[in-house]
């Protein structure tokens, strides 16, 4: 059966795809937005501390489901394992309308100017494909601003002398400080650091017709019960639908992108919610599935013209898979400090993002979101008992006295950390699954260890009577901050898309999500994904000429 041809099909209703859907449909293009997951509501919060997107020991809260979506991982010793979606090593990001933005912690960072010029700043790093972005911070600045005001960001970065130049302040004030904030703020000042209020995609006051955060502890990993977290599901996607030009189809799994006899994209084949194979013709296709699934879809879209997959003429699709290397420290304070005021994270420093002697980059450091009791279980210092009376004593003694500080170390991209499609394992729909392999660069580990030390020093200054570090191993990194697999660049031989997110050799195919990130900043990536989406959409709309691109 034939579905009515549309101007644009967008695959994936997450941080990137949701924004592209709104921008294109409001500009008058007919749009179909496909999402493999469901559309959840604030009533799906459920506060289930063993089944959510952060702690998924009893399954993912917001998809994908374990039964139909396996992946293959290859460990450092070359051992292959088929993993289920909630299992370790899967490197999951939520599958639902809003994608990760539906249940995230919602830190809203702009990358710094140097984050777009890592190669120019630090030179060649042996064993890494470190490179500059083809776009600069200045190119993206207006779009960062648009994301902050349209999706909604609270916070106050005026205390951060390191942030890149900006024209407007954030639209909402920060949430009032919690107790950790009040302890850590003066301590950072005493160390000569520059603490400030984390920008968050979270309403601190009523905004966009939704209420303010009620400060519960079920934040990162959960749906917001009062709809105070701002994602694409409650901002741009409703606007796209209200334009009358966008149709959202949920529980649709794309099989492949189809190409015509001239090597241009003609539409997509997908399985609808009833698992029926459908064909949707379109003038252009936007891939916004997240770094792992976007690469998988391109690699699975083989044809006469593209025997190795779309955009993969030079074997760069799926390469440079990266995320963030989270390290930090725990500190035990002399008296209880737990105040049950969510989201918990509130204070950060950017003193160590760059300018660390001998290190190519660094990380933002922030206090951590509230640790739910089960999450705290594994936070015992190394070498201390993990069970028995001693562990119970630790829980009882430390839970209300502990502060955690950590940060996302910017990773050195590694060419052999990658997404492939598995030659044997297929998902429920018969589509070859993603196969993940590779490791972190040794310099990434080195930087992250230094960051853990800095976090520890901050806690000590804050009066912690005992501190211990959380370090990282060398295994593959991707996770919810997955990025890098369809690198943006000016040279088609060493990148997948151009500076406007257009696949080099297919002019009506776009990749608009964190896949295009050349490097991933020392920050949570979502606001940059959003800025790129606004930026690429803007260019796309301006070059749109009725039934094609100028």
């Amino acid at each position, binding site marked *: 059966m034939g579905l009515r041809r549309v101007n644009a099909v967008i695959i994936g209703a997450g941080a990137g795809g949701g924004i592209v859907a709104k921008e294109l449909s409001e500009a008058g293009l007919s749009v179909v937005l496909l999402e493999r997951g469901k559309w959840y509501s604030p009533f799906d919060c459920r506060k289930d*501390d*063993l089944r959510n997107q952060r702690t998924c020991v009893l399954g993912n809260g917001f998809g994908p489901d374990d039964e139909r979506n396996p992946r293959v991982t290859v460990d450092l010793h070359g051992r292959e394992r088929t993993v289920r979606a909630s299992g370790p090593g899967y490197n999951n990001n939520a599958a639902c309308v809003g994608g990760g933005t539906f249940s995230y912690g919602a830190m809203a960072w702009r990358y710094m100017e140097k984050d777009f010029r890592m190669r120019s700043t630090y030179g060649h790093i042996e064993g890494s494909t470190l490179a500059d972005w083809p776009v600069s911070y200045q190119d993206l600045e207006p779009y960062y601003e648009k994301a902050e005001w349209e999706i909604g960001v609270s916070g106050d970065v005026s205390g951060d002398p390191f942030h890149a130049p900006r024209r407007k302040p954030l639209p909402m004030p*920060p949430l*009032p400080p919690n107790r950790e904030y009040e302890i850590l703020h003066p301590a950072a000042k005493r160390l000569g650091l520059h603490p400030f209020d984390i920008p968050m995609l979270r309403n601190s*006051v009523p905004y966009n017709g939704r209420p303010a955060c009620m400060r519960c502890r079920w934040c990162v990993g959960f749906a917001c019960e009062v709809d105070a977290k701002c994602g694409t599901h409650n901002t741009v996607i409703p606007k796209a639908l209200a334009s009358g030009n966008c149709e959202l189809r949920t529980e649709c799994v794309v099989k492949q992108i189809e190409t015509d006899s001239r090597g241009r994209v003609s539409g997509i084949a997908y399985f609808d919610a009833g698992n029926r194979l459908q064909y949707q013709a379109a003038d252009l296709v936007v891939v916004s599935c997240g770094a792992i699934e976007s690469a998988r879809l391109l690699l699975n879209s083989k044809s006469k013209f593209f025997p190795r997959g779309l955009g993969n003429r030079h074997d760069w699709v799926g390469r440079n898979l990266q995320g963030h290397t989270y390290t930090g420290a725990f500190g035990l304070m002399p008296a209880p400090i737990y*105040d049950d005021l969510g989201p918990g994270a509130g204070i950060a420093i950017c003193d160590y993002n760059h300018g660390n002697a001998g290190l190519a980059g660094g990380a933002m450091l922030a206090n951590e979101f509230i640790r739910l009791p*089960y999450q705290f279980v594994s936070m015992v210092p190394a070498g201390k008992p993990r069970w*028995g009376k001693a562990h119970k004593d630790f829980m009882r003694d430390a839970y209300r006295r502990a502060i955690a500080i950590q940060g996302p170390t910017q990773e050195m991209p590694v060419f052999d950390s990658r997404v492939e499609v598995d030659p044997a394992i297929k998902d429920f729909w018969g589509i070859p699954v993603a196969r993940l392999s590779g490791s972190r660069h040794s310099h990434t580990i080195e930087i992250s260890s230094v960051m853990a030390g800095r976090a520890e020093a901050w806690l000590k200054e804050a009066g912690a009577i005992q501190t211990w570090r959380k370090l990282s191993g060398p295994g593959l990194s991707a996770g919810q901050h997955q990025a890098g697999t369809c690198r943006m660049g000016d040279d088609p031989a060493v990148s997948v898309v151009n500076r406007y997110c257009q696949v080099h050799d297919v002019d009506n195919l776009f990749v608009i999500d964190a896949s295009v990130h050349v490097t991933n900043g020392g920050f949570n990536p979502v606001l940059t994904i959003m800025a790129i989406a606004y930026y690429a959409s803007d260019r796309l709309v301006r070059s749109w000429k009725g039934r094609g691109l100028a």
Partner: protein
Amino acid sequence: MPRSSKPRSIRRRTLLAVGAASAVACGSRRRFCRFFSDEEARTVEALCAQVIPEDQDAGAVTAGVVNFLDKQLAGFYKPLQKVYRRGIAEIDHRCIAFGGKKFADLPASAQIDLLHQIEKDPDLLPFFNLLVDHVMQGFYGDPRHGGNRDRVSWKMLGVPYPPVRGRLRYDLDNPGASEKPWG
């Protein structure tokens, strides 16, 4: 004992009938197991009692962690049934080989010694790590999953429940002076 049955498809009446027929006791209290045999439940309960012992606060046994494990092994952890069956049997086997008694019949000090031995044993360590993690889930996790009875662990940690809503009050002229709920 409905060892391989699917709990979701069992009607309460059927379960009661099966339970009454076999009169299986799961844990210290008289109730019905979905997965563990009577003997297995006894061993698991003894293991739980050492992983999170009772003291001035409830331990894993009082919190119903055996029920949590049993419920999950018949549900989400079904793929781990064999691992559990083999792991429990191996621990008991080792206890009999060393001291002529099953794990549950050893004195507490001997149980703890044995668990420390297991921690150094590459064959049994993976199962023990798994068990410890699951016991922690059952004890510190949400009661809806079958453990943490009466939220005993949350009470122990002083985690308020249910959370108080609407306690955020703003003084936008002086944000630093806003409410301090711990004051």
